[in-house]
């Protein structure tokens, strides 16, 4: 009972702190933008810990954050090896190949209207193929190692990236295009000097969406066959062994890696599209 009351108290405290921050004089500063979510996260973790302890939730159902934390530090080498296998080899290579080829394809689609009309609807259809169905097929085709994971990631990120880039390349306003016309600019001149820069916000949107997709794709694909290594492998094996603390440690790694990856792309975006109103605000 006391831990539950404690949990409620933690909740009220976190909320009160954040309300103070949000309505306070510094509510627009970077500090608050960083602190508020942190306090929120800590509040959630505090409640989690207290509820798990208070209700005596069994370890095999939901481990407490402190237990996960201990497991995380004890298993760093394993987690690192899994991270390299899944994120670096599987997700990252798939991300680069997928986004790269989608970008090239987008240029072709942009160049030939026929392709845009024909390929995009088909592309949307293919994008709707659920990953849990494609992953086993790709594992069958590309083997058990990271290559098949990269292939799954390529399939997952290709179409979101394609659709965004194509939309972006059409983003330049009629007036901006007309200006290029009056200069009698060639296709590639107007591509490089107008359409590509104008497309950047969209391209980055696609790149951002793709970061989380890549991560999820690489992990889930490991459920359908893998070497005895990797985050997806570890998660499913650990569930079987009832090592739920290990499962959550891997999830922490996934969340950290995903956030860092997303943040990195968002930072590059800020630098590249500094001129866009959404980045100036």
């Amino acid at each position, binding site marked *: 009972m006391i831990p539950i009351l404690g949990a409620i108290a933690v909740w009220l405290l976190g*909320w009160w702190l*954040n*309300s103070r*921050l*949000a*309505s306070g004089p510094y*509510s627009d500063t970077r500090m*608050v*933008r960083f602190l*508020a*979510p942190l*306090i*929120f*996260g800590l509040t*959630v973790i505090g409640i989690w810990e207290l509820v798990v302890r208070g209700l005596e939730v069994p370890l095999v*159902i*939901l481990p407490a954050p402190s237990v996960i934390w201990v497991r995380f530090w004890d298993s760093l080498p394993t987690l690192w090896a899994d991270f390299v296998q899944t994120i670096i080899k599987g997700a990252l290579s798939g991300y680069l190949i997928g986004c790269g080829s989608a970008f090239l394809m987008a240029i072709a689609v942009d160049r030939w209207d*026929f*392709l845009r*009309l*024909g*390929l995009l*609807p*088909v592309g*949307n*259809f*293919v*994008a*709707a*193929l*659920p*990953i*849990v*169905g*494609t992953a*086993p*097929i790709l594992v*069958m*085709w590309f083997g058990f190692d990271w290559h098949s994971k990269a292939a799954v990631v390529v399939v997952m990120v290709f179409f979101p990236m394609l659709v965004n880039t194509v939309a972006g390349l059409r983003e330049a306003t009629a007036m901006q295009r007309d200006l290029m016309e009056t200069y009698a600019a060639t296709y590639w001149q107007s591509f490089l000097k107008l359409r590509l820069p104008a497309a950047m916000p969209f391209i980055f949107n696609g790149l951002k969406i793709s*970061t*989380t997709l890549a*991560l*999820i794709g690489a*992990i*889930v694909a490991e*459920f359908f066959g893998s070497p005895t290594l990797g985050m*997806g492998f570890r*998660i*499913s094996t650990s*569930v079987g062994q009832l090592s*739920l603390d290990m*499962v959550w440690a891997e*999830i922490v790694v*996934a*969340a950290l*890696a*995903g*956030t860092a*990856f*997303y943040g990195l792309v968002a930072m590059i975006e800020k630098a590249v599209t500094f001129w866009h109103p959404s980045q100036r605000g």
Partner: protein
Amino acid sequence: MKQIVAVLTVLAAIVIVWYAACIPMNIKGVLTEQERAGAEVQPPSAKDRRDMDEIGLALNNAFAIPATWEQERPRLPAPHQVAIEMWETTVQKKITSKRSLIYHGWVTLSATMLGFVIGTGLGILLAVGIVHSRVMDLSVMPWAIVSQTIPIIALAPMIIVVLYSVGVQGIIPKAIISAYLSFFPVVVGMVKGLRSPDAMQLDLLRTYNASRSQGFWKLRLPASMPYLFTSLKIGVAASLVGAIVGELPTGAVAGLGARLLAGSYYGQTVQIWSALFAAAILAACLVGLLGLIERTVLKRMGMAQ
């Protein structure tokens, strides 16, 4: 019109590439079968063929090429095999039959719809909270992004077990996973949409001394409609994936996910592919339906020109 021609051309190209791809993909299996049936195959032993180049094999054993489109358990089924399987499991089966894709599609669809309704409902509520409360905006929004980096699909089995433990079974666990996946796009889209009124439109209401709820119903909500529909379309596709994922670990009970699993379990590639396509067609229909609703609603609101 031009669009139809273009789509058909692209489809034709895909089908041709697909048929061509069947040859190298399936040639090894076909040769093994042919060898067992007594045909003369170059080279004769499966072990020798193991590391050989598929295209070379196909050229050396050209007689086996037609068989690559007719295998019972191919690595890559030919388009017509998938089409026939889909035809047989939809049109030619009673829809109440457990072998009917329509039956399984319906099972998945009902979980999808429930999850979609829950997910969008929560998503919209959260978006309203974020737009109206700075505390929520500051503290919750970043975590909504982090939540998407968690491989929920990997957690699906655990979620289902945890729900078992509180006595929730059947359609609900699937719907919850599907709600989780559709929730995020709706939050992001609706936050954007509810914030889309420009300063002038907001100031106008201020000069009228309108209340917050009047501002919501008369300005923010209608202004967010186009965004809502865009995110609903993304959300419904995600919902479907969620429902299918939720069907996997609960065992091959029913639904398209169970079909995928069973197909995979018994090496029935044709069945996997037809379930896959059924899922994609279902997604396309849902998105198309939403598009239709979008057009009528926006037209009635005067926002489609």
